[in-house]
């Protein structure tokens, strides 16, 4: 084992096993000792944070077809006819 490879896969496995929990605490995550020295796991964390950040931009893209509103209208007319809903 060379000095460059001080990170055994066991260290990485252990760190990655904790990741789902660590992600809930930004402070714990950034301060984690393993990240200070493991490039691969740092890259992993950056990617996952990047994906989470990009997801926030995914909001409203799709429009329903106009048929949806037609159906809603018909259903509402039916409901008011069927139900004796008087206010």
């Amino acid at each position, binding site marked *: 084992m060379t000095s460059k490879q001080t990170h055994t*896969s066991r260290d990485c496995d252990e760190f990655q096993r904790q990741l789902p929990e660590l992600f809930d605490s930004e402070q714990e995550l950034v301060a984690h000792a393993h990240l200070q020295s493991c490039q691969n796991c740092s890259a992993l964390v950056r990617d996952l944070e990047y994906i989470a950040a990009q997801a926030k931009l995914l909001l409203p*893209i799709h429009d329903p077809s106009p048929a*949806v509103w037609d159906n809603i209208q018909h259903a*509402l007319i039916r409901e008011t006819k069927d139900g004796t809903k008087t206010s």
Partner: protein
Amino acid sequence: MTKNTLRTAEKVPSPTPSQPLTAEARPVQQQQRRNPPIAGELAAIASAQQGDGAAFEILYNMHKRRVYSLCLRMLGNVAEAEDLTQEAFLQLHRKISTFRGDSAFSTWLHRMAVNVVLMHLRKKGLPLVSLEETLEPSQEDGPRKDFGTRDLTLSGSIDRVTLERAVEELPPGYRMVFVLHDVEGYEHNEIAGMLQCSIGNSKSQLHKARMRLRNLLRQNADGKVDA
């Protein structure tokens, strides 16, 4: 089936430039940022509560896109998403008189839509939480040590359309938690309540979803370079 609809995403400009957000952006701020007050909404709500059909139509037009996008992402199917959008707004019509304004109207409505989708999936007998992890721990979701040498991180390499397509490819259980948490901004305790799973389960599903997305996006990025 969903592909054609999703293509339209390309034409929609990104509302915010892709900026590195801190991972702990506060959910409340998220809710406000995602559900900003809409001009005329309060008046429309008040009128709709009095049974004004035109006001209800205004509310529909204000919120149809968000509600439908939510349904589509959770279900991955246009026909079902349209049916459930319809169902969500019919429920809104039945319940709007109970809206008291304690929370943002959109937050209230979206929660209603989420419940409609979840109830639909339960009726179909589908597990809301992915069973994959217990059935077969997939190699690709496990820890990775080798990233190849090309580029170490994804940062800056994905756009919304690419991510959107990758999200579509997620297994339903992973997609559900990813959409609820990372896209819609719900917290793990809320998701655990909605999906009737443990908080730890919600966290682990989210993690697996992001890991799967990373692999999909990396393949995609590699494909681009190789092409």
